[in-house]
């Protein structure tokens, strides 16, 4: 990659801008609804053909994974170029071309730990959005204590045989492949775990959606009954999966965090409160107590946003994770839950509609979002586990166990 000076970056910016003007489909200028999310994969039904076109065009340039190496279909951009691309995409309010666990979680660890053959086989289809991946981590007996997982993986000579159960597998019913933690040695805990990949259509795999309190079913129970997996689909060493698993969790938490669980989308809390409660002669929300709590929350959200920005700037400068990263997932969960509680409170009963007449679409989304947000402090590591991690790894306090 050429060493881009300022002039070259500006040239790149001009090219990017021109390309986007030419290639971003006009029909995508409308705001993206929740059911427009471009997940890709074999089973995916594209509601809007232009969204697929946008994915194909971006994927052809490798810009769904702008900084991944070109040899696997990535964009091969430098950090500086990627920043320019992000800025230009933001400028036209472009929808994401692809949302994908493959991009956010699996791809980065494959680049780090997989063999050349595995990279060639799996990475290009992630970039093109052809394969949708799900994450086989939690089990009924292994939640916060993830390393207690028991899904058995036996070496049968020419293949592995997998038996067991996963739970809270996001979108397992819609995924094509799974990256899965399995037990390959029962005599050890962390050192007996391996990291395998397999097709969800393999005989013996079954995914059953779990209905949540919000009424939606983003998670599944996933069962494995004598599932045969080719031996070249293990990533890293036999019994060396825990390191990869933890690495992937870092990417997951980083990703959850940067988006703040999507807080800020949908209705604006302040506008809702002004409308539902009214304002005084100075334009202040006419409920001093609630107004103060909304202000405190908005300040938390502002502080959170500044912290995400600082963590990014610091890790770019030092080329290592900043201490601030460790607290971001915990803070994001707290903030999003607080936002929804305040939203429901500000809306009164109008914010608790379940379905049907009398409620606007975005009002009903508040009820569902409020319930869904309760999972934020559980998924991707509970808040309590996050605090344990900070206490132990950042503050150097000894394990309480």
């Amino acid at each position: 990659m050429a060493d881009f000076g300022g002039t070259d970056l500006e040239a790149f910016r001009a090219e990017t801008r021109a390309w986007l003007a030419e290639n971003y489909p006009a029909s995508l200028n409308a705001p993206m609804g929740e059911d427009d999310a471009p997940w890709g994969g074999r089973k995916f039904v594209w509601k809007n053909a232009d969204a697929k076109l946008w994915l194909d065009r971006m994927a052809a340039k490798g810009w769904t994974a702008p900084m991944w190496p070109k040899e696997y279909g990535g964009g091969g951009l430098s950090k500086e170029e990627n920043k320019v691309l992000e800025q230009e995409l933001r400028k036209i309010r472009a929808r994401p071309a692809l949302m994908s666990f493959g991009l956010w979680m699996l791809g980065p660890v494959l680049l780090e730990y997989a063999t050349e053959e595995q990279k060639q086989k799996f990475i290009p289809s992630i970039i093109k959005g052809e394969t949708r991946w799900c994450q086989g981590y939690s089990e009924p007996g292994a939640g916060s204590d993830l390393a207690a997982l028991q899904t058995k993986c036996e070496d049968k000579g020419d293949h592995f045989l997998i038996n067991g159960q996963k739970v809270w597998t996001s979108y397992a019913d819609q995924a094509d492949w799974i990256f899965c933690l399995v037990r390959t040695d029962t005599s050890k805990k962390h050192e007996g775990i391996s990291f395998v990949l397999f097709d969800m259509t393999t005989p013996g795999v079954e995914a059953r959606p779990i209905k949540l309190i919000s009424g939606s079913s983003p998670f599944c129970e996933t069962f494995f009954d004598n599932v045969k997996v080719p031996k070249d689909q293990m990533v890293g060493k036999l019994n060396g999966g825990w390191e990869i698993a933890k690495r992937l969790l870092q990417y997951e938490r980083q990703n959850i965090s940067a988006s703040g669980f999507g807080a800020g989308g949908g209705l604006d809390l302040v506008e809702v409160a002004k409308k539902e409660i009214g304002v005084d002669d100075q334009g202040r929300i006419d409920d001093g107590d609630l107004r103060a709590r909304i202000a405190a929350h908005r300040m938390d959200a502002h502080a959170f946003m500044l912290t995400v920005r600082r963590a990014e700037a610091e890790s770019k400068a030092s080329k290592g994770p900043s201490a601030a990263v460790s607290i971001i997932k915990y803070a994001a969960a707290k903030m999003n839950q607080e936002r929804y509680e305040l939203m429901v409170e500000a809306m009164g009963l109008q914010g608790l509609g379940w379905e049907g007449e009398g409620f606007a679409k975005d009002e009903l989304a508040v009820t569902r979002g409020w319930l869904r947000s309760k999972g934020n402090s559980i998924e991707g590591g509970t808040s309590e586990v996050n605090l344990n991690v900070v206490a132990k790894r950042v503050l150097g306090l000894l394990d309480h166990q």
Partner: protein
Amino acid sequence: MAVLNEEQTMLRDAAREWTQENAPTTALRKLRDGKSKATFDAPTWAEMGQMGWAGVVVPEEHGGSAFGYLSLGLVLEETGRTLAASPLISTALTAASALMLGGSEAQKAEWLPRIAGGEIVATLAVDEGSHHAPEKTALKAEKTGDGWVLNGSKTFVLDGEAADLLIVAARTSGKGTDGITLFLVAGDAPGVTRTHLSLADSRGAAKITFEGVEVGADAVLGEVDKGWAVLEPTLDRARAGLAAEMLGTATQAFEITLEYLKTRTQFGQVIGTFQALQHRAAKMFTDLEMTRSCVEAALEAIDAGQDARATASLAKARANEILHLASIEMVQMHGGIGMTDEHDAGLYMKRARVAEALFGGTTYHRDRYGRILGF
């Protein structure tokens, strides 16, 4: 920690080393027990002046180094760690800012070099009651001939007794933020009476009364009746800088407490292994990190010449909250020893509450933040 340049890294490291060595908490105890009523130790301040700390934000043509507010924040964070009492906040931060923002060329040339050199103490006299309320400025200034005459009082003025220069917010007309005018008044001007107010933080402040104090037309800083245009950004610089000092104080309180959790043994194990304490420590760390982001963002916004009103209020409110919490937890997690005067926990708690109230408490800044954002 913000991404620092080489000069800033050197400044921070030098400040850390110097304050730990020359202005530790024992220096504050000495000041307290000396009964001199001084709000700082003069030789310590003189040394700070020699090191250039008083001129960090002052432009080069007026004898400063023009390193900016983020840089001054680095120094304040270090003095905050050891509770070093000095006129950095009153003089190098607040008064220097007011002069830079509102001063005529002549005023800047007269005062800024002396501030930058640490030769004088200057301070902003704004509040008149127990709560920060610059909008309620009532001290009266009336036109007489060519000049003005000031009548009224100010209270809780930082380093007010030692100040050579007072920057006084006065009411010249109107109400609220309209009709305020800033005046430069000599600390020993006839009609100025200063009384020491001894506060729990051992630094104290001054009550100052103005009885028929006469100043010339050239004493006006900025424009008549439009002092708010200078006062508000000056206060935001004071708030952001004080927040940096408080971040340092909170960080030190936290680190001392964390060290204690790692060494104190009960029930046959160090108390830091107890999850109830671990989670409280981890939450404090989270708040410290979030506060750091806010403080640095406010200082950076000021350096970049951006509207820093919302971030300054955010930084001060956040610093108030984390220092409040860290000072309470410092006493609680130390147990009985934390209640003794021999331990430093009490010093941190006392300084915390005074700093929290200065330039606006948490509710003041929450309310202001809401107003700025239009609700």
